[in-house]
């Protein structure tokens, strides 16, 4: 027999604290669709996606209703298109992106990830074509997301790729200037990209994965915040160790929900279950913010001194609780700090509590990186590449995933507002130190060597 407390506390999490399954992402392997003929390639891709994903949305809705848990987003991640379409030109790559977009629309998913390349050590022909195609592909499509892994702890940082991505971001922003450069919101640049991320824009299906797999992204910053505030209402003398314990227990509950839903959807579709990504992913809604957790812990705002320590505490507790709850944890798994997507962080940027330097600093202890940051439109490609290189270095040296999703908003300057809409939110444009001067460092190109794995101080 369930207790009244167990039932009512679950309902409270669902109805008032924004507990949900943020995404169920179906990974689909497209590697055997490869062809030198564009028509054959796109036909196979379309058939493969519509076959595997035909019932994804209805399955998620059915299981969501059964448990009373909304599955907010249903998404698809495919094999890196740079490998699948290695024989394609950049123009043909754009055509492949259009087919991905159409297939996603046909099965009613909101995003499809995997317009991706893994170039941490070097760029093959297909990789070059894909990188060149990214700005146009993201402009012409609504649902396609792109990601490029330019660095890893084993390989170092491919600075040629970093500079190319800086140029691609500028170009993508210009092509979507009438929407504040929104194409850039669908483009992530990574170090140490995991193969099983369910969250966009970084989702793709890794080379080592099966034909099809269900990965789940859970969220729940509102649940964590409310759990902390309830505990502090009862005893405001709780120390940080005790508050960490509360976050850990809450992360356990949130992760269990994700695992239950993920396994059931996977069974329903007769597809193997992959991982739960136990990230705290905010939305631009009140009560669904990672930034608010910092205030619950006693900070004036995210960004003030103490932020990095608080984030380290949060991230570690989330991982510990999640790892205990599920034996299949993967993806990014940590707290996201997407500036425009989190009302509280966006507000902290507007008030000047947090800037680019502090955002970069805190990525040393969280997942994932400089996420959804609006920059002045005159920030040069070189400067964007340099910001990315800094972020990649944090990931490479600390043996963790880091990424950037930067949006140089055309025609706007620091302090202006950028509007992306929906889950992408809005943000004050953050100033960049020396943002439009030449940066010969990144123009040198080459490979920053892989770091030593000993002498770790």
């Amino acid at each position, binding site marked *: *027999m*369930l207790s*009244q407390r*167990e*039932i*009512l506390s*679950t309902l409270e999490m669902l109805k008032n604290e924004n507990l949900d399954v943020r995404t169920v992402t179906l990974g689909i392997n497209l590697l055997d669709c490869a062809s030198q003929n564009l028509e054959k390639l796109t036909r196979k891709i379309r058939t493969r996606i519509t076959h595997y994903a035909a019932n994804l949305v209805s399955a998620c809705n059915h299981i969501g209703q059964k*448990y*009373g848990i909304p599955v907010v987003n249903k998404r698809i991640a495919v094999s890196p298109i740079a490998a699948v379409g290695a024989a394609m030109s950049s123009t043909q790559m754009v055509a492949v992106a259009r087919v991905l977009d159409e297939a996603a629309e046909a099965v009613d998913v909101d995003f499809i990830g995997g317009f991706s390349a893994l170039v941490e050590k070097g760029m093959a022909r297909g990789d070059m074509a894909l990188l060149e195609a990214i700005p146009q592909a993201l402009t012409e499509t609504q649902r396609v997301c792109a990601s490029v892994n330019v660095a890893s702890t084993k390989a170092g940082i491919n600075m040629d790729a970093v500079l190319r991505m800086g140029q691609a971001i500028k170009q993508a922003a210009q092509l979507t200037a009438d929407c504040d450069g929104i194409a850039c919101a669908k483009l992530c640049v990574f170090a140490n990209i995991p193969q099983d991320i369910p969250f966009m824009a970084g989702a793709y299906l890794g080379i080592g994965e099966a034909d099809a797999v269900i990965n789940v992204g859970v969220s729940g910053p509102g649940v964590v915040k409310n759990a902390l505030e309830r505990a502090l209402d009862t005893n405001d003398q709780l120390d940080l160790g005790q508050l960490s314990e509360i976050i850990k227990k809450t992360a356990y*509950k949130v992760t269990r929900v994700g695992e239950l839903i993920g396994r059931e959807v996977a069974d329903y579709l007769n597809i193997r279950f992959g991982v739960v990504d136990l990230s705290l992913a905010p939305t631009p809604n009140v009560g669904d913010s990672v930034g608010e957790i910092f205030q619950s812990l006693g900070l004036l705002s995210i960004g003030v001194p103490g932020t990095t320590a608080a984030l380290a505490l949060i991230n570690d507790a989330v991982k510990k609780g999640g790892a205990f709850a599920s034996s299949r944890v993967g993806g990014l798994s940590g707290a996201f700090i997407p500036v425009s997507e989190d009302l509280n962080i966006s507000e902290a940027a507007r008030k000047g509590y947090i800037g680019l330097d502090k955002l970069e600093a805190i990525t040393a202890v969280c997942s994932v990186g400089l996420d959804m940051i609006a920059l002045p439109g005159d920030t040069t490609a070189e400067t964007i590449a340099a910001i990315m290189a800094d972020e990649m270095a944090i990931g490479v040296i600390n043996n963790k995933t880091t990424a950037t999703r930067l949006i140089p908003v055309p025609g706007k300057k620091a302090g202006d507002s950028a509007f992306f809409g929906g889950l992408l939110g809005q943000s004050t444009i953050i100033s960049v130190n020396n943002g439009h001067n030449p940066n010969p460092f990144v123009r040198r190109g080459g490979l920053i060597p892989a770091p030593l794995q000993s002498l770790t101080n």
Partner: protein
Amino acid sequence: MDKAIIAILGHDRPGIVAAVSKILFARDCNIENVSQTTLQFIFAGIFIISMPADLSEESLRQTLTAALAPLGLDVHITLFEAMTTPVSPPQSESYIVTTKGPDRKGLVAGISEVIARFEGNITNLQAVFKGGDDPGDNIMIYEVDVPPQTDQQALYQELKKRAQELALDIDIQHRNIFEAIHRI
């Protein structure tokens, strides 16, 4: 060996279970199951016992009544035949139906009628009505076994429709979600 169900009802006070079990032990009865609860200030306890062959129902009733009536407790005994083969429960899915809303007459009757119409078996019901319009003060929680042949969509829709008629906020969820979240 015969079995009996003994129901004890009355004002709650310390020592009720001790008093009943002491008598049962003295009369060589074996307690097989006990369930007890307290609703507001009323104790309700149900004991399933096996009885020795030489003990009659009437004799046990007299003994229990003599001891418990002074404590303000009512005693009810019903005999039944011990089952020789266990009966497996029918296959079903277990759902939790929770309602909140202003107190009024007919809430339990209204919701349980829909559940019965769809052949759902209520295995546990916790209902607290403190009165008034605060939804949090008036809660019903049904644990319901739903047979596989039941049209679950139709059951969902009918329950939601009935809840709307009764001005109740209703949630219907598979039991596993609560176990997943709260139990290791």
